[in-house]
């Protein structure tokens, strides 16, 4: 705790020093960022939207994209994990796709989609692949003995999937959800680069970047970082509750 606190303090000292000696007139020091933070939080930005509102709107977009990413990634991952031939068939499509960053998809999403769907699509790009890959990995790790055991009790394929394969892959799936939500959240700036709406944390950053007011840009960055941290922590808590059956590893 003490170490954590000191490293935060040292970080701010460095920042202050860099701001002080930097030749650039646009680099704000921590204090002006704090001032900007309070202004945006209480008064709002140039269009009158407060920081909380920006965050809520962004969260809504990301959670929608996350929901679609989960609803597609888990079932497709289960299917591909169970059917290796199908996985072999689609690998040449999936593998290169997952290296294309969300930003690169922006023009296509403008051509193909409208409104909220554009946000959902761009976030989905970030969420889908981690969820998909971890689900496949989880399915692959299912113990053959457990499957055979279920068969001797008369389980059909459906029962084996719901009672053995899914619960046994759940730790990996949850890991995929955590990583996916993190990546999806990181896609928010890319997702909000387009569209006319003036709200959203990504929008806030872009708006003030154009105005060359870097203090507000940093406020947006820090808010994104902190919310990402909180989301990650929430899923970790959930995982801890769900997987009490796992051997606890004590450091």
């Amino acid at each position, binding site marked *: 705790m003490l170490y954590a606190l000191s490293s935060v303090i040292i970080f701010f000292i460095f920042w202050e020093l860099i701001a002080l000696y930097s030749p650039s007139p646009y680099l704000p020091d921590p204090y002006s960022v704090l001032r900007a933070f309070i202004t945006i939080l209480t008064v709002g930005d140039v269009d009158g939207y407060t920081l909380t509102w920006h965050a809520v709107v962004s969260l809504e977009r990301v959670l929608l994209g996350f929901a679609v990413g989960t609803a597609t990634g888990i079932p497709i991952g289960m299917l591909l994990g169970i059917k290796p031939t199908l996985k072999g068939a689609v690998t040449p499509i999936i593998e290169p796709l997952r290296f294309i960053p969300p930003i690169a998809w922006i023009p296509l999403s403008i051509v193909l989609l409208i409104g909220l769907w554009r946000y959902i699509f761009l976030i989905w790009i970030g969420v889908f692949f981690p969820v998909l890959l971890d689900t496949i990995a989880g399915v692959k790790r299912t113990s053959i003995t457990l499957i055979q055991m279920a*068969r*001797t*009790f*008369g389980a059909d394929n459906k029962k084996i999937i719901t009672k053995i394969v899914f619960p*046994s892959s759940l730790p990996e799936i949850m890991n995929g959800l955590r990583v996916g939500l993190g990546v999806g959240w990181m896609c928010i700036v890319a997702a909000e680069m387009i569209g006319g709406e003036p709200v959203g944390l990504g929008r806030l950053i872009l708006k003030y970047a154009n105005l060359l007011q870097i203090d507000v840009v940093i406020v947006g960055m820090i808010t994104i970082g902190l919310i990402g941290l909180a989301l990650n922590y929430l899923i970790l808590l959930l995982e801890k509750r769900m997987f009490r*059956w796992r051997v606890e590893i004590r450091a």
Partner: protein
Amino acid sequence: MKKAILLESVSKKYEVGSSSLEVIKDLTFDVNENEFVCIVGPSGCGKTTLLRIVSGLEPPSSGRVLVFDTPPDPRRQKFGVIFQEDSLLPWRTVLGNVKFGLELQGYKETEHEKIARTYIELVGLQGFENYYPHQISGGMKKRVAIARALAINPDLILMDEPFADLDAQTRSLMQRELLNVWSKLNKTVLFITHNVEEAVFLAQRVFVLTKRPSKVKQIINIDLPYPRARLSPPFISYRERILTAFHEELEGI
């Protein structure tokens, strides 16, 4: 008498890479209904493979397998299979694991709890209902697997070295419990073991298998009343007979 298990010239080959391994060759035997049969044989001779064939998990490469006059099918017949390796669901408690078979066999949900608790008590695990597998010992896990298999009231019990991890005392306790269950509930039991004394203590007939590719080397009828005294002269002479046959097979390995 009706046959519980009937094997006619069963062979099993595994293809590994380009070579093929003949594990079982021309194996023929039968097990009567309500009979207790032990199978002993050297390690790697194909005992587990045999059990997988009898339980319908794998088809034989050739030959005929009948369980109660039909090819084995766990979806239509009730088998209680106890695997050699750990087969508990790590995400379920002891109680949840014992309920597992009942759920798959379509027992009424209101009955699961009561039946499961009865069998948990039978294997002496009352008080551990809410423990997860990683919180209990290897021997206790085996007992959970036994409770889970018995809970569905199987027609045929197939056990693959179930007591190998148990300490001597628990082992002899479980052996007596198994004999109890068997005589009370009229089950057919096919029991695999390395332990010759265990086979003589439990079985009406002992099948000694040859080394791979395995077939039946010798069938020994144990004409001793239950419960059997391990130190009685006839017990010891049965044990010696089986050990001799068993050791002849071990030599060649």
